[in-house]
Structure formats: structure tokens, C-alpha cells
């Protein structure tokens, strides 16, 4: 064999030398080598190396390609790329469809979820100065846990402002109040009212379409209403200056109309009343130790909220302690001890929606975890789609081997081929993106229904979104196109031209890894969905401890005035009614129950927080609650009817430090003046959502309660409701009859989880679909590649089953690997998620097994579809084509 020049210097030469000089230089160097090698190989090597080094001159060094070849990106070439790209798409229509639509579906999901996430993140930013606005909250330790109030007492805002100059302004609102408003014939119970300070509208940048925002809430008995609110009462008449009659505040004068509170706000009041409409607030005692006023501070531009927060404990010492001391009649030391866990804190306005999870929010807030979960879901789906795109493109490379070979031998540079394939993949991505935008816009109403949001089409058509869409398209094109481009352009010219198939295209390691990754995600999503479903199912079917079915709740009991008892008696006489109770509704969020601090050892404000249910004597029977000790409240005992005897739940018994032996007859101290005797204990029941642990509660008799609970024993509910309504109207209540079913209210408790679950299921299905599309494409390709092999196997006597197995095996192994990867990860993630629930299931190994089997079966069906087709084909046809 002829001796060859040393490898590394030769490579070095090829690397640095400008291509138009390489041939002559390398030729001369090799000629000299050949001449000297006859004498000594070593000397020849040295000489060659020396020559290579000497050739390393500025003149010979490779510079930008542009210097030698012009017009690499000529219009003609670009046109050619488009043309060949389009022809390739058209030649394999099914394959292209899978490719484009897989990506389009992925992008659609990404867009929709992105709009959801964006909306969640944009809350409360409509206020021009939102970055400087903070809400004051109060945290204190109670029942061994931390109680967190998003609102504080009436004097706190003014107190903070007067003590700290960095607070420029403060404003307060009372949260949702209800009232009955009347205008002419219209008489409506309004839920979304609030009393607000006069600067509230200005601070939150809520513009008025009628009236002046600066003065609208200055005068007492002013009301600023939303456009929809105004329309309800005044029709098309101008609302400004109209007078409404309120049950609580008398005559209200409309001083302003706003369009509506933006959707992405943490409150949605329908009307603002001036704070001084309630004289007790403005003229009454300015206290610190209660709660109830949502207080917002506007800080100075340079103020540091953390530093301000650190100063707030001084205010507790200055204002809260003396107040407690006075109110409770206790010593200074006791008062200090009782508030030593109190802490005022600041919550940035823009974080309220996602980060504030107190029990007493104005509206159900979002959750940053959901944003993360959905964000991750969106990115995963996009990744899955991109992976498909990559896999399918590289898999189709075999068909293009000849094209690449010919392009290369006609003088294409690698960079040109890379450009060609990137252009192609970007065209595909853009087509997919166009489809995705159309899909997203079409599906937006359904998506909004699913999420309960009101994201408009305008969101997708705004300039920043359109720009990011284009950027997204290009990024996806590059991301998905880079690997195929680099892979395809690396084929060796001679080999592809000779053998008509570039090596390694059937089984590529990267492709296998990507398939594993796809199915790992799919399996994890299946696990997550099953576990979430089980947990939700568990919560909804948890033994609530009472009977929620067939209970009609009649609201506004107070409106009947003197006829309250008469109404109850009328209901009791109805043969369709089994029990009636005039009491607090036993289902709601914790914030809807009144509560107080009580103790088993004398008055002490830092005792146990206990919820108070106002009930009558029929409550236990109506709700089917189970008495474990003592007796029910009864009108036979005078202390019962005075509200001095109470029935408590088991949790209260435990938290107050009693047990079955000593609880009956014990005293609950509310304050020095107010005490209760325990006469009975009921079995614990879930009066809030089962997401939360059962809290202490006590029931005491009051003649006035907000609702009637009517247990009915008829299937003809609608007739019963009609009759009851007639009865209600017969008492001339000045409030319309309104009712709901207890089990409806019950299902509302889990609405947020159900929504999340539904969204999750939808996107899980899509993710799996995308993964399957990819697998389908790959198996199609693989079957195509092996046409001849399969033909020969069949001729030699393979059965259809063997061939199907042969083809499915490699994919199934990949899916199996994916399951092994996904199982521990998904188990861990779901375990973390379950920790957020007060009552939870444990994850069963069978769930993961089930998910694995599901993934495997789905994959098997996808793959075997193509495998069967290939196996059933007539071998004559595949072999004759040779």
C-alpha cells in the first residue's frame, strides 16, 4: 500500500486552507511527500508537516465564503428551495399532514394555554400605579395554625399613613356587601356592593363614563354604578342624578357610571357607595383590633415595602395593645401576650390574584401553582409537537437522499443544504402556525367556557402577540429544523447516490431518545390525570356527615320580619316537607361563617377560634346530623332559647381540651360577660369543602337566621317551589323569593378543581394524540423502509404475526423505557400535589401500572396499524419493484 501523508497535518491543511487554493496546495504537498517518502517515511512526514506549516499564510487562509462565491442566497435559489419543499410536501400528502397538523395542534394548545397564563399573570395591572399599591393584611396564630385576613380594621390605613411618610395615600373598601335596592318597580337584591373611600376610583384608575371620579364618592349616600347596573334600573335613561332606595342607607344618588371592572381584577364590584354613607364607620370609634376593611396603600416611588413592613409591629404596640386592654379589661401584660402573634403585612396588588389564598378573599383567586402547571403543560405539548416534527423530518430523509446527493455533486455547500432545510422547516412551521391561530380563534369560546375566563379575540390580534407569534414560528422552525438540517446535509455524496439510502436513517439514537421522551411525558400525564381524578372523586364522595340531598334553601329569611315563624309553620304543614329549619346554611367557604375567640379557661382573646352557627331546634334533624353526646337544643329549656346553651362538634371538644367525660356542662368563655354551657356534642361534619380540615364550631339558638332549610320528600320539586313562592309572596315580603338546592352549592365547592381537571384532561388527550401522531409517522416510515425485507421474510415463510411483532418490537421497547422513566417522576410530582389537600388519597401502584399499560396499548395500536398494513401486503409487489 502506498504510504499516505500524516493525517493530522493534512486535516489541518484542509481546515485552514481557502477552498479555491486547497487543491493545488494539497497536490503539491502530496507530490513532495510522495517523492521523499521513498527515502524515509519519517523524514517525509516531517517535511510534509513543515510544508503545511509554511503554507499557513494569510493569503492561503480561508476567509468568509462570500469572498469566493457570490449569490448563495439568490432569489433563484430561494425559489428553488420553495419549489422543492412544496413538491416534497405534496408527494407524501399523509406524511405532510401528520407533520403539519401535529405541529399545528401543539401550537394551538400552546397559544390557548399561553393566553390563559398571560391573563392570570396580568391581574390588577390595569391600575396605572399598580407597582406602588400594596394591600394590608393581618396574620395571627389561632387554633395552632395561622389565620390570615386580607383585610384589617377601619383605622389601620389612616394610622399607617400618618406614622410613615413613605405612604402617600391609602384607600379602603368593605368587600362585597348585599342590599336591596329599589327604583320604581325594580326591586333587586344586589350582591356586589361595596363602601369605598372617595379616592378609591382614582387609585385603581377606574374611569367614569359619566360623572367625575375625583368627587363622585365624596358626599354621603352617593353611589357609582357600572353600566350594566345602570341599565338594569334606569334602562336607557341617563343614570347620573337618579335616586335609588336602599334598605340600609335610604336614598342613594347616582353620581357616576363606570363601564365595568376589568375581568382581570381581584374584585368585581357592581357599585361603589361612598364610605360616609355609613355614619358608624366615619364617625364611630376608629378601632385597630378587628378586620373587615380591604385597605390599600399607595407608596412613594422610592419606598421599600419590606422596610415599611418591618416597621409595622410598632403600630401594634402603639394602637392595638391599649385597645385590647380596654375592651377586654385585662392587664397590659395579658394584652401584649394576646397579640404577640399579630402581624400586619403588605401584599403587592399584582400578586393578590395568584399568591393570596386566605379564606376571606373577595373572590376565588387563581393559584400560581396552576400557572406553573399549565405553563409546563404548554411547553411540554409544544416540545412534543416539535419532537414529532424533528422525527418525521429526519425519518423522511431517506427519500431525499438522492436529492441531497445530486445537490452536493452539483456543487451545493453544506451551508446551502442547511439553509434549504431550515427554510423548508420554517415554511412548514409558518403554515402550522397559521392553522394554529385559526384553530385557537375558533376554539377560544370553548376554551373560555372551560376556564371561566373572558379572553377576547383581540388578545390574539394585538401587536405584541402577533410579533411574538412570528418569533415563535421562526423559533419552532429553527428548533425543529436544525437537527434534520444538520443530519441531512451530513450525508456522504457517494454513499447516498450509490445505495440510494443514507446510512443510519432507520434507527437513530436521537430519535429513540425523543420517542422515549414523548411517551414519558404522555405516561406522566396519564398518571397525573388518573390521580387527580381519584382525588377529586374522593373529595366529592367523602362522608360529609350530613344529608345534602333534597334540601331546598330559601334565602333572605330576615325579609319576612314578623312572619318568620309563620312561614316556617306553613312549610311544616306542607305534606311534601319532612323537616324545616331556620338556620345558617351548613355549606360554604369558611369565610362565610361568623366566628369568635373562645376559651375553656376564662376570658382570653387568644383562645380557640370557633365558628358560630345560628340554628333553631330542628337543625340537627333537618340536616341529619348525628348527636354523639348530650342532647339537642330544645325549647323546653329556657337557657337554650336564650342562646346560652350550645351544641359543639367533636373538633371543638378536642381543641378546647375536653373529652367525652367532662365536656357536658362545661363553660365556653367568649369574654368576661358572655359565656356558654355545652349541652351536646355532634359528630364532626364537613361544613366547608373537604379540602380543609374540619374546624371547631358551635351551634346556638337565635330566633333570627338568614335562611330556611327545607327537607322535602317529593319528586315534584318544581310544583313545590311554585307553591312556596306563592306562600312567600302572601307574606308581602319586600324582597323577591329566592332559593337554591343544597347539593348544587355543594358541587360549587370543587369547581376550581373540576375546572383544572377538565382542562388537564383535554390537554392530556391532545398531548397523547400528538405523541401517537409522531409514532404513527415513524412506524409508517419504518414499514416503508423495510418493504423489501418484509417481502423477503414473507416469501421465506414468516407469518403475519411474526412480522407485526418484528416491527412493533422496537417501538414498544422505547415506550417501555418511557414508562420506566415516567413512573417515579410522576409519582413524586403527584405526591407533592396531594400534600395540598387536607384529606387525600394515597397513590396506588396500580395507578402507575394502569397508566403504563394504557400508554403501551395506545402505542401498540398506533404502531400495529402500520405494521399490519405492511405485513399484509403482497410480497410480490414489494419485491418486483427492485
Amino acid at each position, binding site marked *: 500500500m502506498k504510504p499516505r501523508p500524516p493525517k493530522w497535518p493534512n486535516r489541518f491543511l484542509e481546515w485552514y486552507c481557502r477552498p479555491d487554493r486547497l*487543491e*493545488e496546495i494539497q497536490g*503539491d504537498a502530496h507530490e513532495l511527500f510522495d517523492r521523499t517518502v521513498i527515502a524515509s517515511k519519517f523524514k517525509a512526514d516531517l517535511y510534509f508537516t513543515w*510544508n503545511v506549516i509554511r*503554507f499557513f*499564510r494569510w*493569503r492561503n487562509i480561508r476567509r468568509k465564503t462570500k469572498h469566493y462565491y457570490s449569490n448563495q442566497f439568490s432569489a433563484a435559489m430561494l425559489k428553488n428551495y420553495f419549489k422543492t419543499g412544496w413538491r416534497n410536501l405534496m408527494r407524501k400528502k399523509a406524511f405532510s399532514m401528520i407533520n403539519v397538523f401535529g405541529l399545528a395542534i401543539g401550537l394551538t394548545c400552546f397559544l390557548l394555554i399561553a393566553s390563559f397564563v398571560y391573563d392570570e399573570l396580568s391581574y390588577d395591572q390595569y391600575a396605572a400605579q399598580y407597582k406602588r399599591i400594596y394591600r394590608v393584611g393581618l396574620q395571627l396564630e389561632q387554633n395552632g395554625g395561622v389565620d390570615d385576613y386580607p383585610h384589617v380594621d377601619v383605622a389601620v390605613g389612616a394610622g399607617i399613613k400618618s406614622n410613615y411618610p413613605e405612604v402617600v395615600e391609602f384607600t379602603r373598601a368593605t368587600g362585597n356587601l348585599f342590599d336591596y335596592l329599589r327604583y320604581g318597580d325594580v326591586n333587586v337584591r344586589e350582591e356586589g356592593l361595596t363602601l369605598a373611600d372617595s379616592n378609591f376610583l382614582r387609585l385603581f384608575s377606574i374611569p367614569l363614563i359619566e360623572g367625575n371620579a375625583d368627587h363622585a364618592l365624596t358626599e354621603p349616600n352617593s353611589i357609582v354604578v357600572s353600566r350594566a347596573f345602570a341599565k338594569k334600573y334606569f334602562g336607557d335613561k341617563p343614570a347620573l342624578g337618579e335616586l335609588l332606595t336602599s334598605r340600609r342607607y335610604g336614598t342613594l344618588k347616582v353620581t357616576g357610571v363606570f363601564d365595568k371592572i376589568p375581568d382581570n381584577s381581584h374584585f368585581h364590584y357592581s357599585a361603589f357607595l361612598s364610605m360616609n354613607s355609613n355614619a358608624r364607620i366615619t364617625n364611630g370609634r376608629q378601632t385597630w383590633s378587628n378586620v373587615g376593611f380591604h385597605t390599600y396603600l399607595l407608596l412613594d416611588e422610592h419606598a421599600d415595602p419590606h422596610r415599611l413592613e418591618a416597621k409595622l409591629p410598632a403600630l401594634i404596640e402603639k394602637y392595638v395593645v391599649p385597645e385590647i386592654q380596654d375592651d377586654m379589661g385585662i392587664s397590659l401584660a395579658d394584652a401584649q401576650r394576646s397579640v404577640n402573634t399579630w402581624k400586619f403585612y403588605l401584599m403587592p396588588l399584582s400578586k393578590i390574584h395568584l399568591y393570596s389564598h386566605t379564606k376571606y378573599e373577595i373572590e376565588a383567586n387563581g393559584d400560581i401553582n396552576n400557572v406553573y402547571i399549565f405553563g409546563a403543560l404548554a411547553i411540554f405539548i409544544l416540545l412534543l409537537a416539535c419532537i414529532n416534527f424533528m422525527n418525521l423530518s429526519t425519518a423522511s430523509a431517506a427519500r431525499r437522499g438522492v436529492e441531497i446527493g445530486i445537490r452536493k455533486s452539483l456543487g451545493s455547500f453544506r451551508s446551502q443544504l442547511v439553509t434549504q432545510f431550515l427554510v423548508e422547516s420554517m415554511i412548514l412551521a409558518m403554515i402550522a402556525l397559521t392553522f394554529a391561530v385559526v384553530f385557537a380563534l375558533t376554539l377560544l369560546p370553548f376554551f373560555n367556557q372551560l376556564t371561566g375566563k373572558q379572553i377576547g379575540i383581540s388578545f390574539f390580534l394585538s401587536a405584541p402577540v402577533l410579533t411574538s407569534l412570528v418569533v415563535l414560528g421562526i423559533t419552532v422552525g429553527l428548533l425543529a429544523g436544525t437537527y434534520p438540517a444538520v443530519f441531512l446535509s451530513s450525508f456522504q455524496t457517494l454513499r447516498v447516490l450509490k445505495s440510494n439510502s443514507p446510512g443510519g436513517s432507520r434507527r437513530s439514537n436521537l430519535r429513540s431518545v425523543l420517542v422515549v421522551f414523548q411517551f414519558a411525558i404522555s405516561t406522566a400525564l396519564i398518571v397525573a390525570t388518573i390521580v387527580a381524578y381519584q382525588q377529586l372523586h374522593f373529595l366529592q364522595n367523602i362522608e360529609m356527615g350530613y344529608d345534602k340531598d333534597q334540601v331546598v334553601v330559601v334565602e333572605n329569611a330576615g325579609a319576612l320580619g314578623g312572619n318568620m315563624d309563620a312561614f316556617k309553620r306553613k312549610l311544616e304543614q306542607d305534606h311534601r316537607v319532612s323537616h324545616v329549619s331556620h338556620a345558617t346554611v351548613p355549606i360554604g367557604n369558611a369565610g362565610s361563617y361568623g366566628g369568635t375567640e373562645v376559651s375553656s379557661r376564662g376570658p382570653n382573646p387568644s383562645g380557640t377560634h370557633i365558628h358560630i352557627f345560628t340554628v333553631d331546634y330542628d337543625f340537627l334533624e333537618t340536616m341529619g346530623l348525628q348527636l354523639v353526646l348530650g342532647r339537642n337544643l330544645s325549647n323546653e329549656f329556657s337557657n337554650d332559647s336564650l342562646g346560652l346553651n350550645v351544641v359543639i362538634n367533636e373538633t371543638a371538644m378536642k381543641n378546647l381540651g375536653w373529652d367525652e367525660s367532662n365536656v357536658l356542662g362545661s363553660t365556653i368563655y367568649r369574654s368576661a360577660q358572655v359565656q356558654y354551657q355545652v349541652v351536646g356534642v355532634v359528630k364532626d361534619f364537613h361544613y366547608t369543602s373537604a379540602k380543609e380540615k374540619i374546624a371547631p364550631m358551635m351551634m346556638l339558638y337565635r330566633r333570627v337566621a338568614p335562611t330556611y332549610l327545607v327537607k322535602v320528600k317529593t319528586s315534584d320539586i318544581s310544583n313545590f317551589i311554585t307553591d312556596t313562592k306563592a306562600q312567600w309572596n302572601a307574606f308581602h315580603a319586600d324582597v323577591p323569593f329566592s332559593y337554591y338546592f343544597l347539593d348544587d352549592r355543594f358541587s360549587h365547592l370543587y369547581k376550581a378543581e373540576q375546572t383544572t381537571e377538565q382542562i388537564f384532561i383535554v390537554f392530556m388527550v391532545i398531548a397523547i394524540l400528538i405523541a401517537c401522531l409522531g409514532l404513527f409517522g415513524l412506524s409508517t416510515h419504518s414499514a416503508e423502509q423495510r418493504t423489501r425485507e418484509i417481502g423477503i421474510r414473507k416469501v421465506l415463510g414468516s407469518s403475519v404475526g411474526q412480522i407485526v411483532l418484528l416491527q412493533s418490537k422496537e417501538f414498544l421497547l422505547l415506550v417501555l423505557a418511557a414508562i420506566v422513566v415516567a413512573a417515579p417522576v410522576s409519582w413524586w410530582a403527584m405526591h407533592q400535589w396531594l400534600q395540598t389537600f387536607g384529606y387525600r388519597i394515597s397513590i396506588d401502584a396500580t395507578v402507575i401500572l394502569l397508566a403504563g399499560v394504557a400508554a403501551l396499548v395506545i402505542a401498540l395500536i398506533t404502531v400495529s396499524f402500520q405494521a399490519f398494513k405492511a405485513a399484509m401486503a403482497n410480497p410480490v409487489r414489494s419485491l418486483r419493484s427492485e
Partner: protein
Amino acid sequence: MKGTHIGELEELVLLMVGVLYPEAYGVSVMDELDKQAGRSLNISAVHAVLTRLEDKGLLESKMSEPTDARGGRRKRIFLLTAAGKRSLEETNELRNQLYNRIPRIALQFRMA
């Protein structure tokens, strides 16, 4: 000034290209310089001079047909251009003129 003046080595290489016609390329020029003028140069230096002369317009080049030698690589064959020929003639003429003007006595002088 480029094109008007050529150095001694350049002149030598130009001559060699003429002598070697039509087989003047890097290695042959290098060999000929060594053989005829006793000038041993590295091949890269020869390349440098050749390309410099080409830049000055005194040489032109084309790629040869590939042969089995050199691993099938082609050679760059250099040819004199009209300007190259004129340049050679001019220097030759100048030399002859000047040589003829040297007094005979000066050439007969012998060192002791």
C-alpha cells in the same frame, strides 16, 4: 509601483515559468530554481511568488487535467502573459544594453 517593477526572485521565477512551458507549476518551478539557479526555496515561498506575479498580471494560470499522481489532484499550471513576456524582454534588453556599455578594460581587470 505594482506591475512596473519586479524583484530578483520574481524575475527568476518568471524566467522559470517561461523555461518550463507548458509544465510550470509549484513543484516543478521549485525544482528548476534549485537545479538551474541553485536557489533552494520552500514550496510555500514559491507559491507566494507565483501568486504575487499573477496578481501583478505577469502570469496567468489554469488548472491542469487530473492525473493519477498527487491523489488525483489537479495542478495549477502557470503561463506567461503578454505583460509577463514584455517584462522579461525589457529586463533582458536593459541588461544587455548596460552590459554592452561596460568598458572592456573593466572586464579584463584581474585581481592579483
